[in-house]
């Protein structure tokens, strides 16, 4: 998608099941994957592409001598071609399991898994060659970087199961288990810059070095038990309890317990129901889940200061303020559900209602630099989620040769911040994430409001004698127009402009099969949410957005002056001296439109055809009799069609990295790909 970038993936997998004796079975599975490729910073690419003048062909990026073809701004394709990062990951995942059943009512299970990988990254950029007119973009004086990460996670689970008949009608099962998880990740890297020979990409050729190094280790243990009771095979009760011990909290807080209880009533097996109603179940449950912090959230200290050359060392305060008294977070969820099937499973539904309250949520809040820290680990407060989940399925058509079954899933969640840690009136988790002048938006948690609120600067509006709402901007009110004929920005004042969490999400899966042919389609939707569109903010500033073509025309902005009268002043939307003799400076789009958040916090709702797949099962007569049992070929298309009002790239893209909780800002990222897969499945 981005020139000079690629991704390759090669994997192998082996699974075996071994029967050591009638009572003892074992299994081993192993998989090995090698993946990697050349990467480039999509944000930088998008930014440089926006700056690049439309007069020139951006694909003409290099001169015959091999230096950048300079047209006034840096060419992003030259950047991708010369400033390279290649990663190579070797990942090995292996597991072994044993199950031993000494008697009919007792069995033991032990599972051990290892996930380990090494990630090597090499960065190279050539130095300047001293040729006339040479522009080096981000390559500086050349660089060579070699970074290595090694990761190892071990997971060991031991389980004992016992089941017995407690009375004539009740069967009981008791399960006890112990789980251990141990994870270690180490990294070390060195970046050499100032290359003596411009294209000799070896560390020995560099004059200045920057070293980075780190280690993260984590352990957790869990003891758990589960008791299941089965009354006459239609009423089921399940009780669980788990004690977790973690290395990420202080000794006083590191061990915590959480239980759950659930009741399941298959009333179709208990009560006589009409013929057309199949299996039906009523479910009720309460569950408490405890969770620990990310590693080292309780510590504060000093890190290496990187502003010194080799030969000097210094210490600087580490960026995160840890909290030694950090407590685990707990979530209490109450759930009620009903599932029913009709007409011999031709139609079924499953609906669940849940109400979930999370307390003492652990998060890294962004705090004022006047504290000396960038972020602080805190028990942020409590947040409530409640909603419904619905799955509707059925087989509308079923004949000898043709069948169509469909499944619809729908969920809607309402979120609310109930309270915050004492002393805080708001917690910022995404501060000022990019944009021109006063357009950067803020994401913060405020009691009484939901997660995902987007706060930004807005157009001033005319309220007359009415009171102006301090939180919401009333878009039904007329814009306030200044004496110069242009609308007015609220500058640094911010109001609630949107929310990044959807009102509902849903999907529809359809499977059509005719004899040997099967067609499956998946349609996804995420509806009722907004995002701050950084890409459009950029494009408005550079006259790339299609609506900016009106900048060679006059406009009378629809709105009201400060004194309440309607605006009639005609202004030129272009730059510098307009045909009316007035100097418009940088012009409407650069001086006004791009300078505030409101035009760019927009509806990002989307519906897409996520995938469509056509499969043909080869008839047995075509296959060599003994060698191949079955075979099928299929062609699948992913991301085939998208409907959205969002400007620019796919609104599923994010400005932040995939591990971030800041999901309300998008633009200048890798766009989502449309891909096609051809698969051959052969069974031996």
């Amino acid at each position: 998608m981005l020139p000079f970038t690629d991704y390759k993936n090669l994997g192998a997998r082996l699974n075996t099941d071994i029967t050591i004796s009638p009572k003892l079975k074992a299994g081993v599975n192993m998989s090995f994957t090698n993946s990697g490729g050349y990467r480039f910073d999509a944000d930088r690419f998008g930014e440089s592409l926006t700056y690049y003048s439309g007069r020139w062909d951006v694909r003409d990026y290099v001169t015959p001598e091999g230096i950048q073809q300079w047209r006034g701004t840096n060419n992003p394709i030259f950047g991708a071609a010369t400033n390279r990062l290649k990663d190579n990951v070797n990942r090995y995942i292996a597991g072994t399991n044993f199950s031993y059943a000494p008697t009919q009512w007792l069995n033991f299970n032990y599972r051990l898994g290892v996930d380990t990988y090494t990630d090597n990254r090499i960065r190279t950029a050539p130095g300047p060659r001293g040729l006339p007119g040479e522009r080096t973009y981000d390559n500086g004086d050349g660089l060579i970087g070699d970074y290595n990460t090694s990761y190892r996670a071990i997971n060991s689970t031991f389980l004992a199961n016992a089941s017995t008949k407690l009375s004539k009608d009740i069967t009981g099962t008791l399960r006890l288990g112990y789980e251990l998880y141990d994870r270690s990740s180490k990294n070390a890297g060195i970046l050499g810059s100032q290359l003596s020979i411009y294209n000799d990409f070896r560390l020995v050729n560099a004059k200045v070095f920057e070293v980075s190094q780190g280690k993260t280790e984590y352990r957790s243990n869990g003891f758990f038990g589960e008791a299941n009771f089965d009354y006459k095979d239609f009423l089921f009760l399940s009780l669980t309890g788990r004690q977790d011990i973690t290395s990420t909290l202080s000794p006083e807080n590191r061990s915590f317990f959480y239980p759950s209880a659930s009741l399941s009533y298959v009333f179709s097996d208990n009560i006589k129901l009409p013929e057309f109603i199949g299996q039906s179940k009523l479910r009720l449950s309460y569950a408490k889940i405890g969770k620990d912090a990310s590693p080292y959230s309780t510590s504060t200290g000093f890190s290496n200061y990187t502003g010194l050359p080799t030969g000097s060392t210094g210490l600087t305060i580490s960026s995160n303020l840890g909290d030694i008294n950090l407590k685990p977070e707990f979530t209490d969820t109450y759930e009620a559900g009903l599932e029913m099937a009709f007409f011999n499973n031709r139609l079924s539904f499953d609906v669940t209602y849940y109400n979930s309250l999370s307390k003492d949520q652990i998060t890294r809040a962004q705090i004022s630099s006047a504290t000396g820290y960038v972020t602080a680990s805190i028990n942020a407060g409590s947040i409530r989620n409640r909603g419904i989940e619905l799955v509707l399925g059925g087989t509308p058509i079923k004949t000898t040769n043709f069948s169509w079954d469909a499944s619809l899933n729908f969920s809607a969640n309402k979120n609310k911040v109930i309270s915050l840690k004492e002393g805080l009136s708001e917690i910022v988790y995404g501060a000022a994430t990019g944009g021109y002048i006063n357009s950067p938006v803020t994401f913060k948690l405020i009691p009484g409001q939901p997660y995902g609120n987007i706060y930004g600067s807005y157009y001033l509006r005319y309220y007359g004698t009415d009171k102006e709402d301090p939180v919401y901007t009333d878009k039904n009110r007329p814009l306030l127009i200044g004496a110069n004929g242009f609308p007015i920005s609220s500058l640094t004042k911010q109001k609630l402009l949107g929310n990044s969490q959807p009102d509902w999400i849903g999907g529809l899966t359809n499977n059509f099969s005719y004899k040997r042919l099967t067609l499956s389609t998946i349609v996804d939707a995420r509806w009722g949410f907004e995002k701050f569109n950084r890409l459009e903010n950029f494009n408005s500033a550079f006259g790339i957005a299609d609506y900016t073509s009106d900048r060679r025309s006059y406009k009378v902005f629809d709105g009201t002056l400060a004194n309440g009268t309607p605006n009639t002043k005609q202004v030129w939307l272009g730059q510098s001296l307009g045909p009316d003799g007035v100097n418009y400076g940088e012009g409407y789009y650069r001086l006004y439109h791009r300078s505030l958040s409101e035009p760019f916090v927009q509806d990002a709702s989307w519906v897409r055809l996520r995938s469509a797949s056509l499969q043909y099962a080869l008839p047995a007569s075509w296959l060599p009799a003994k060698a191949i049992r079955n075979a099928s070929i299929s062609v699948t298309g992913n991301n085939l069609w998208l409907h959205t009002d969002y400007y620019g790239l796919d609104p599923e893209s994010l400005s932040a990295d995939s591990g971030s909780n800041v999901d309300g800002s998008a633009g200048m990222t890798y766009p989502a790909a449309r891909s096609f897969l051809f698969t051959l499945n052969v069974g031996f």
Partner: protein
Amino acid sequence: MQKIYKYPFILATAVTLIFQSCGKEYFDELSANPNQVNVPTLPALLATATSKAGLRTYDAGSVVTPYVQYTANPTAGAASDIYETIDYTGTWDGMYFAMADINEMKKLAASTSSEYLGVANLLIAYHLIIVNNFWGAAPYSQAFDPSNFTPKYDTDQEIYAASMKLVDDAITELSKTNATIKLAAASDLIHGGDRAKWLKTAYAIKARLLIKASKTPTFSATAVLATLSNSYTSNADDAGMSTFTLRNSWAQVSRNNAGLTLGGWLSEQFIDHLNGTSYGLFDPRLPKLTEATTVPNNLNYPKWIGTVNGAGNRLNPPNNNTVKDENYISFISPWTNDTAPILLVTFAELKFIEAEAAFATDKPRAYAAYIAAIRANMLKLGLTTAESEPYVTNPIVSVGAANLTLALIFKEKYVVTYLNPEAWNDARRHNYGYKNFGMPLNAVLPTFIRRLDYPIGERSKNGTNVPAEAPRTTKLWWDL
């Protein structure tokens, strides 16, 4: 596998794993962050403190140079030239993170070393003064407290008083000669561990603070002169930081410009100040600060010509913008080459403070200081007496004690504070009264800029405490 081995094997594996976890140490050994050090050392913090003081001086200088028109932007209508609001969250954060590190050194030195304590007090004051110069009111009394995520803002004058107290405390501590733990020479990137030099620098910062209030009713010229008598006596005392990962930050700007990532273009105001256009006398320091233009095929093209603030790159057809037809910050200049120090405060600047303080009561002393300052700066730039004297003795410069004016003092001081953030204080006190100093082209403010807007980062994270927005033409408390 033999029956006899199976069961014990499984049991043993499970049991070892369970027992491995039982000890408290099993978790304790992983709860501390191995990537951090819990107890720092004074030399390690000193290296960071002095390095940051130098680099933050560059950051502050970069903010100031377009406003005092040392530099101009090659793009017409650039935000920094035309007084548009700019988000300086990075600069603000840099100052506070520097103060936080230096505050750790202060806490560590509080009962152990008067020398380190003195340097810590002085360097906190140094950064706090920069914040005060740019924004006025700022957090300080509630800052650096891990239990307070939203420190309140002290007023403009409270910050001024707090920085004065820090400097006075620094002077008290640095005056003590019997410290058991002395400054580590290799870690002190400004004065190489010399306590006496730090004491003089403390007096220098104090003199700067006092002269800043020159227009306020409580100003005392005698206090300034008394402070100066304890401060620098020659260029050798100058405070500068020259330890860089790669090179001097201004040299980097200059090299980037040569590689055509444009920056560091000198303003027409500064060049005309030096090339004779504004004051009628060519200043021999000009070729030492920058390099002459190189325009092919045009022998009559002026060698010394700057960029007009707000107007951008001169068009000069048929040359495009790859031709060096204006002057830029130079990496050959002794002031801004790869190994040059970033200067925090210089002897020449202090001489001008002396001239300004003595002006009202002792004109001969003021005049002597004025001339000495110019000579010191020329010497620092590597001019020989043969090169500097024609300028110094010229009647345009050597006007005689009776004809000395404050305008002349500020005029010459403007050259000496080249690229230093202190220049903005002087410009504001002098009402930007340098000859031919005009508003930038297409400025968005009606008059000269007097302060910065609070950073967006602070409004996001500490919004309830940040003062209400005020126009950037609002004067700070001492700017009367």
